[in-house]
């Protein structure tokens, strides 16, 4: 049976069999779940449908969350996408990601990817990339399987939970997943997929999880926007020929060690960092009394 535990194994299998990364991820899943390729493909299509709906809702949503901390920013970013330094593609991706995270915060429907707190990054980056590349739906679904395979390796060797590894485990993992997917959508090689994962994660190492009032809102919602853009830059660098000096699996190992070294107060407990700022404490008092 086809199996992999590291990015190196995943990439080597794809190279040996002259297949794409998503073919290897699918082959493994068919074996472990005992489901057909078609059934798995259809389930991913349903997830993509929900992702698209959350993108479309996000960029027009003006509703604020239960706490009142977030809401309406995606619409502002999207409307200003032609202006500014970065350009429409980057601003649109940021708007999609912030929008999905805002939909999440108002108890809307999203796809956890890999978590609810980081749910905007992968769909936003893929949505923006697919618009630019004019990718087919099948290419997009394939890229989602690639993203998933990357996330599976990260979870196996590090963590995807903020409570265990800080925000690098959530938004960092999502950025790595998105960067790999974007390389595939642009026609890059499996090896380049791995390079993009390395670059994206490396630059978010050490990111802590210190949410204001314990809610998945500040800094999470806007951070989804930044991390989506971050994944696009990682993919672009790799497609330009840049390689990671540290191999991707060693980056993931480093992420695991760093996660363990992050104090508990900065792993989703809201006992330090942004969560204990004067403003955060005042807001917390207002929400919970």
């Amino acid at each position, binding site marked *: 049976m086809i199996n992999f535990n590291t990015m190196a194994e995943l990439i080597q299998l794809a190279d040996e069999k002259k297949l794409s990364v998503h073919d290897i991820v699918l082959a493994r899943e068919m074996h472990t779940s005992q489901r057909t390729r078609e059934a798995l493909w259809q389930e991913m299509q349903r997830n993509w449908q929900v992702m698209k709906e959350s993108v479309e809702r996000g960029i027009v949503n003006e509703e604020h969350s239960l706490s009142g901390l977030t809401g309406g920013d995606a619409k502002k970013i999207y409307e200003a996408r032609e202006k500014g330094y970065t350009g429409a593609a980057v601003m649109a991706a940021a708007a999609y990601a912030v929008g999905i995270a805002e939909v*999440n915060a108002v*108890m809307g429907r999203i796809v956890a990817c*890999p*978590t*609810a707190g980081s749910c905007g990054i992968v769909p936003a980056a893929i949505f923006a990339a697919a618009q630019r590349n004019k990718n087919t739906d099948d290419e997009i679904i394939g890229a989602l399987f690639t*993203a998933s395979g990357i996330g599976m390796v990260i979870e196996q060797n590090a963590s995807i939970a903020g409570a265990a590894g800080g925000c690098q485990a959530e938004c960092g993992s999502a950025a790595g997943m998105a960067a790999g997917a974007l390389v595939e959508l642009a026609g890059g090689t499996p090896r380049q997929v791995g390079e993009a994962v390395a670059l994206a994660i490396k630059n978010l190492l050490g990111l802590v999880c210190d949410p204001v009032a314990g809610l998945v809102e500040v800094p999470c919602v806007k951070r989804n926007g930044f991390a989506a853009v971050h994944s696009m830059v990682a993919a672009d660098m790799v497609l330009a020929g840049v390689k990671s000096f540290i191999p991707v699996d060693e980056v993931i190992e480093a992420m695991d060690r760093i996660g363990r070294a992050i104090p508990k107060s900065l792993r989703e407990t809201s006992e330090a960092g942004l969560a204990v700022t004067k403003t955060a404490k005042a807001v917390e008092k207002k929400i919970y009394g």
Partner: protein
Amino acid sequence: MRGVFDIVGPVMIGPSSSHTAGAVRLGLIAGKILGERAVKAEINLHGSFAQTYRGHGTDKALIAGIMGFSPDDERIRDALQLAAHQGLDYSFQPVHIENAHPNTAVIYLIGITGRVARVRGASIGGGNIMITNIDGYDVELTGQYPALITIHRDRPGVITQVTSILSKYEINVAFMRVSRQSRGEAAMMILETDDVLAEDVLEECRQVYEVENAFSIPAI
């Protein structure tokens, strides 16, 4: 290693997989254990659940689950109004439970015919849950598999009789746990299975002399 849809998925209502999606599943399983429409829900919340339940909509999520909504149902955000409309009376109480998981809920339900159920469980991350106590019996139930639950007298041979019924219907047991209040008294057995449990299987289990009741909970 977990599967593809544990990473890209599940489809859920936000904002938090542990405080919202997991809470819906806790409510769902409590409702299934009650086995009828609930008219009263008294819910104790411990740890992070107690501190942040309003901001995460954990209260709405638990009630939605008790009413049978799935974690991706967009009615979750309106669950408290819908509960009032359906005649489900609810209350939430922050409590401290020694050595409990930070996201623990104890759900006490009264059903329309007067049946009661007390279910304790925790949302353990990523929307996954662990039920740790049902009606005073210590259990370990994840809700990932269909489960057969029996209330029976703690006597030799009961387990064999029940598992041989499952064997007859070619139902494979994935996990199993037996718990009793004291020797020879009432006991509970939970068998998590790979296959769906049909009513005729349950009926046959109820025919076993020592079995007082047998019921099933679908995978949620």
